[in-house]
């Protein structure tokens, strides 16, 4: 009987752990997607010819890169309700991760734009591409390809940083493993399990990233140094 109970408690804990892992994946995916969406306009602000636009880009990056993520999460979670914006914890966490990572991704992306020869922009405009078309069809694909490894670096960092979102009440992998440990007092087993799950998610992310790089590199010769 005790054996049966033991297994059922164990299987229950494993199920809870996997649900937590699902939450971690969902919140960090949402945060990363939002971050990339915000990063594109921030990056264009930073690259702009206009001094005021550049200053806005620099200000965004230095605030969100300079203030610790934990503080940003607490601000989103506790200050936005004060403005009558009541956010569920999951949304607050995704937004907090997103606005923070956008600062880093904007810089990663900007590096990719810097190395594109100026002539390509001029040529595209001469062919009658609008400014928006030039960006979408000519510049962004090349910048993405060059910046992809750095972008994946940051996505992995955000996945690991998502262990902080439990402070705003999200039941992520870290929080549920703490809960399980509080109940059955086997820290080594459950924290190791959590660590392995984080590692597996990161490996999958890295593999996806390299697949994306290959996709973006179609038509490029393999560089022989």
């Amino acid at each position, binding site marked *: 009987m005790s054996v049966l109970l033991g297994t059922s408690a164990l299987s229950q804990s494993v199920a809870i752990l996997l649900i937590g892992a699902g939450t971690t994946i969902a919140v960090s995916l949402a945060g990363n997607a939002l971050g990339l969406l915000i990063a594109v306009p921030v990056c264009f602000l930073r690259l702009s010819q206009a001094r005021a636009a550049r200053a806005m880009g620099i200000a965004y990056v230095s605030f969100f*890169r300079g203030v610790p993520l934990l503080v940003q999460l607490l601000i989103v979670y506790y200050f936005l309700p004060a403005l009558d914006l009541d956010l569920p914890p999951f949304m607050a966490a995704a937004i907090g991760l997103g606005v923070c990572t956008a600062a880093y991704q904007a810089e990663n992306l900007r590096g990719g734009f*810097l190395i594109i020869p*100026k002539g390509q922009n001029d040529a595209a405009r001469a062919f009658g591409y609008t400014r928006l078309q030039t960006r979408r069809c000519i510049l962004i694909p090349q910048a993405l390809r060059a910046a992809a490894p750095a972008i994946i670096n940051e996505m992995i960092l955000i996945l690991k940083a998502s262990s902080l979102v439990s402070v705003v009440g999200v039941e992520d992998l870290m929080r549920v493993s703490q809960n399980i440990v509080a109940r059955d007092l086997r820290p080594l087993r459950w924290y190791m399990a959590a660590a392995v799950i*984080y590692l597996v998610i990161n490996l999958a992310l890295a593999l996806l990233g390299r697949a994306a790089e290959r996709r973006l590199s179609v038509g490029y010769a393999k*560089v022989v*140094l």
Partner: protein
Amino acid sequence: MSADLSLMTTYGPQLIEGFRLTVLIWLSGSALAVALGFVLGLILSVGGPALTLPVRAYVEFFRGTPLLAQLFLAYYGGPSIGITLDAVTVGVCGLGLYGAAYFAEIFRAGFASIPEGQLEAARSFGLSRRKRIRYIILPQLLVLAVPASVNLLIILLKDTAILSIVTVPELTFQVTGMTLETFTFVAPFAALAALYWALTELVAFLGRRAELRLGVYLRPEVRAAG
């Protein structure tokens, strides 16, 4: 006010020592990360499978696990396999090995971004591989790498605070100790945050200066004048 001054005379020296140690560990850890990352990135770009597979495993392990877990492993697990390191060495090596995994990817991206035609041209001019890397690849690679590297240097700076958990007596460790002895929390931690922020802004500023310098060849007006 007088209370603040007496706090400063009591804790001043150890705060300065903590600040010195934070900067020292950050700079030497980052130097190790950049140097090792460059070598690893080069191997990932040119090596055969026998070389790239172990390097890939290194990158995925150090990038895929949290820095704190790696530090615990080195500091508390190390003695059980006969490696006993003092806290500062663990800090520098931990930060360096961790950062190198990220820098390897940044440099790999840099090597991949060089147009093939340039390298063919350099080869037909008879430049050796060392010279191709030094004069053709590196100046262009750095333009792509600087923004991402500034990101990473800032992340590594903020991560030095984690070292306080494995008893490295750096700035966060000293400030935490001070708050526990004096029961004042807001001012010391606010000052701590401001200090880290000032350092990150300094790195960002130096990064922007470096970009201007390295990107000279990309600006047509300069090219025409030169």
